[in-house]
């Protein structure tokens, strides 16, 4: 299973959690849960790096959370120049995990407020590529 379909530009093609992109293609936001200690990871991890458990299962992630911080990028690195401006944000899901993602293009910088409610959703970039993004709930 490949990871190369993840992101606007991907830098990693091979990973244990390659199925993650398959789930995103099918519009499902999935994390991993350790069968031993029960810890839930999002983004997913191939092993439980906390209790060292190697048995994991895929679990549905509810994307509700709040905005922790953000920026609007006007000057982008190679590979992303055509996307500017875009908003990068750090959110915290109600289940506790922090998530780094872009905001949906239909949300404006002026609407951003730290602490506001946000929703993380799977998102198709084009025929090939998938990612997740924050939206206003």
């Amino acid at each position, binding site marked *: 299973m490949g990871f190369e379909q993840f992101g606007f530009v991907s830098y990693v093609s091979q990973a244990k959690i390659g199925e993650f992109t398959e789930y995103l293609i099918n519009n499902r936001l999935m994390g991993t849960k350790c069968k031993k200690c029960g810890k839930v990871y999002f983004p997913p991890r191939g092993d439980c790096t906390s209790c060292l458990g190697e048995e994991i299962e895929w679990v549905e992630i509810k994307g509700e959370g709040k905005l922790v911080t953000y920026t609007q990028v006007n000057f982008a690195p*190679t590979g992303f120049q055509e996307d500017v401006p875009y908003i990068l*944000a750090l959110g915290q899901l109600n289940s506790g995990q922090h998530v*780094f993602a872009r905001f949906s293009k239909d949300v404006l910088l002026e609407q951003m407020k730290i602490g506001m409610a946000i929703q993380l959703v799977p998102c198709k970039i084009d025929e090939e590529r998938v990612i997740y993004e924050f939206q206003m709930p």
Partner: protein
Amino acid sequence: MTARVAIIGVGQSSFGKRPNSSIRDLTFEAFHEAIEDTKNLGRKDIDASLVATAAGYDKQRSPAAVIAEYLELNPQPTFLTEAACASSTVALRTAWSFVKSGLHDVVAVIGYQKMTDMTSDAIQEVMGRAGDVMFESPFGTSMPAYYAMFARAHMDAYGTTEEDLAKVSVKNHYYSQFNPKAMFQKEFTLEKVLSTRVIASPLKSLDCCANADGASCLIVANESKAKKFAEQPVWIKGLGLGSTPMSLASRNPPFTGFESALEAARQAYTMAGVMPEDIDVAEVHDCFTIAELIAYGDLGFCKREDSPKMIRDEETHLGGRIPVNIDGGLLSKGHPVGATGGSQIRTLVHQLRGEGGKVQVDGAKVALGHNVGGIGMYTNVTILEA
């Protein structure tokens, strides 16, 4: 066998766009100044060299070998030390360990970066990959964007304003006029800083350091060699190195400081037996204006929430409570990643030897250097004493 470890020679190249200089030319320039700075240190008196650079900006792989060759430091040991923008002070820490253990008597630390062979957006891409390439870089990250997110969190938590950030830039650019090795060497008004284009909100062009070419060199020695090869050795009193998860998402809030810096500062203050109020002069890693305010808090110069007040009240100007970045800082010197930490230490060594010229802090006895790798993944703190 003596216990103290000294810096006996410091050097750096001019920082900036150096279109006629390769990594060999830049490191030679820094090494030459450092050798001249010692008292007749010969090439064969150097027992090992540590080369510091962040990978990906120039094409040379395994660069320690070519630098040691060009500086005629064979057949002594040489190798590369990498910790992103903190590479050269992590190499200094490694050199200290070699000397302290008695493995080597004299070690050269040579940091460099050749950046302007690449376009600015290509550099952004390389730097963006100094974040997590699996779950963060695919969104289009860059160093300005990461630091901008810390700036936004700082503003939200402590009422820090864009003017407060700009004041850091104004201060550091002001002092660069007196640093002949700095990239800019010119003043900017607050209005000018605030009117430059937004790179990643709220950070504007003059809130960001410039990519630059440059090299630095520090010669480290044990006490007996220090007395032989230096008129005025400067002693390494405290060292601290800490780490923080690379991914923002794996960190603990609040996003207004770096755990790596808190840990590095704790270690360094403990080892040196000093407190923040004992520091006479400091160099902190101002890759962005917000990074300097973050450093004030992380180093205990003030409470985190008081860092905007510290710049407003000019407590870190020359003549203030703790003068910070009076050589111009990264903001005006330019930031050749692998050379920066060595350049900071060079400034502090000059201060402790009373050679600071127009920016000399009267009677400086204890100095602190704070060198951050990437978005705080690594922080190195070094405390020096005259």
